[in-house]
């Protein structure tokens, strides 16, 4: 089976194109470094099955971080390379293109974001560029699917470029410059009010203000959506569910099976939070308390990712994160970690040094509560008032800062500076965000929920000997 590798600079739309080609859903966002590992998918073309590989983005074949290393290491196994380039930044993308052409492997180029380039007044002579590179080139708009069909049809036209090999880097840059001057014309464009607003979000003063406003708006969004889902979706469902589960409880009568499935009755009734049965608490905690907030959080995160705000937040937060042994990019593992720690820790791969990756992963796993934990913290402490919730988060934040300061002093290694591409703001697609949220929620359902069932089963077993004691504790909770 032939392997087709998608390669290109970060944030040119490789993952979107990959999903379009294979129908395999992968997380795509509007910031560089979303993909930190490769994904595989298959397509059938003219009776032949092809394997498509989506690589992390890299600016050149000399990697500067772990994610880029992954991309470069994939190159050897590839039979055909689809070099995805961003039409709005042709010049910088062509460096990798020229390097790839010299690998003497069949290449086809996808000139992506073609619509955005035209919108910005960037004109590229496609035929001329094709003949200069000596490989086929297809303009695409991966987001809408434009040109993707042509790309697939022309996959077998991919060929080894016969361009003469360039001597050294200087020559490569000169050549790239030549090509760009020949094929591209850019219409002059004045700064608009929107540009000024966009700039304000990376400036020191206004940027911090914007960060505070945007983050608190998103926090409110999470609360409103989460509470809404509980009030209008989950609570009515579980009220309805009380009838069969009570019937089951009566039918089973006291005994081991009752303890495991229904759990302990509180005041003669099923208590979804305290009963600890698989069919009561085991269902209510993941679906009734956690899931609504997970959905709400990932909707908000999707908005944050797809608009292109994250790299700007990283810029504004750089000063703080530097003192904790990372750089501004450290905000991304933290934010992803608030949803689930696993993707949070994985995203630390885009940081350049071992020290930074170590500190980021340690801080995320020790001090950043994932959404399931957050839902539990709110669920357990909610009755006592906001004071206690703030106390928990304040403690976690304090540990985050102190541990960061400490690790920065004690961990050996370098802490390089922030070097980050800022993508343009884009209007997020509701469909894409919904899809992405569903993918992440599905992951939670398949990975975390079975685990919670298990915990309930274990707990109901171990608490079986002391039901009266627990009943009393429950009573106390209600009084407070």
């Amino acid at each position, binding site marked *: 089976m032939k392997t087709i590798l998608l390669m290109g600079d970060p944030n040119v739309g490789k993952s979107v194109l990959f999903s379009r080609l294979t129908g395999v859903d992968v997380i795509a966002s509007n910031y560089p470094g979303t993909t930190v590992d490769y994904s595989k998918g298959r397509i059938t073309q003219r009776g032949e099955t092809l394997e498509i590989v989506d690589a992390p983005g890299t*600016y*050149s074949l*000399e990697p*500067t971080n772990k994610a880029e290393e992954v991309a470069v290491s994939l190159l050897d196994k590839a039979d055909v390379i689809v070099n995805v380039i961003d039409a*709005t*930044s042709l*010049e*910088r993308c062509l*460096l*990798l293109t020229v390097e790839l052409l010299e690998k003497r492997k069949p290449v086809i180029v996808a000139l992506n974001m073609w619509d955005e380039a035209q919108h*910005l007044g960037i004109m590229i002579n496609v035929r001329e560029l094709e003949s200069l590179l000596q490989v086929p080139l297809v303009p695409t708009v991966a987001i809408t699917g434009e040109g993707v069909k042509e790309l697939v049809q022309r996959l077998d036209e991919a060929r080894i470029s016969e361009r003469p090999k360039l001597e050294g*880097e200087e020559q490569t*840059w000169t050549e790239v410059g030549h090509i760009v001057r020949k094929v591209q014309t850019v219409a002059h*464009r004045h700064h608009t009010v929107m540009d000024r607003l966009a*700039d304000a979000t*990376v*400036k*020191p003063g206004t*940027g911090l203000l914007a960060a505070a406003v945007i983050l608190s708006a998103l926090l409110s969004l999470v609360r409103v959506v989460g509470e809404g889902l509980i009030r209008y979706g989950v609570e009515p469902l579980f009220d309805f569910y009380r009838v069969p589960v009570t019937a089951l409880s009566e039918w089973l009568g006291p005994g081991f099976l009752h303890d495991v499935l229904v759990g302990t009755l509180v005041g003669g009734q099923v208590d979804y939070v305290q009963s600890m049965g698989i069919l009561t608490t085991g269902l209510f905690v993941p679906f009734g308390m956690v899931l609504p907030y997970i959905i709400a959080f990932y909707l908000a995160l999707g908005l944050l990712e797809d608009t292109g705000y994250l*790299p700007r937040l*990283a*810029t*504004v937060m*750089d*000063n703080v994160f530097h003192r904790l042994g990372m*750089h*501004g990019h450290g905000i991304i593992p933290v934010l992803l970690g608030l949803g689930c720690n696993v993707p949070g820790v994985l995203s630390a791969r885009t940081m350049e040094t071992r020290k930074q990756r170590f500190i980021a992963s340690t801080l995320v796993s020790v001090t950043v509560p994932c959404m399931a934990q957050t839902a539990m913290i709110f669920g357990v402490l909610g009755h006592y008032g906001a004071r206690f919730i703030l106390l928990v988060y304040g403690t976690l934040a304090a540990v985050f800062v102190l541990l960061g300061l400490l690790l920065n002093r004690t961990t050996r290694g370098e802490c*390089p*500076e*922030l*070097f*980050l*591409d*800022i993508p343009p703001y884009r209007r997020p697609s509701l469909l894409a965000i919904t899809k992405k949220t569903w993918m992440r929620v599905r992951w939670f359902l398949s990975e975390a929920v079975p685990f919670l069932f298990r915990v309930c089963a274990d707990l109901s077993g171990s608490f079986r000997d002391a039901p009266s004691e627990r009943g009393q504790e429950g009573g106390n909770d209600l009084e407070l």
Partner: protein
Amino acid sequence: MNEKSVTQLRQGELATVVVLHGGCGFQRRLRSVGIKEGKTVRIVARHPFAGPLVVEVDGKQITIGRGMAQRITVVQEQ
């Protein structure tokens, strides 16, 4: 011609890149995002306490740490 480091420019000012002081890796990294000799850069933001700079080249913005930015020499446009 008045050469200075890009970090000495104020927010909103324009300048042309003349030299990138540093090793191969450093030069390659900057050039691969468009910061090359002869390019015009605009300072979008300049963060205090030796924080990063945001520069715009060819309509694209890049955040660069202060230490790296210090090694970019520019001449200011009139």
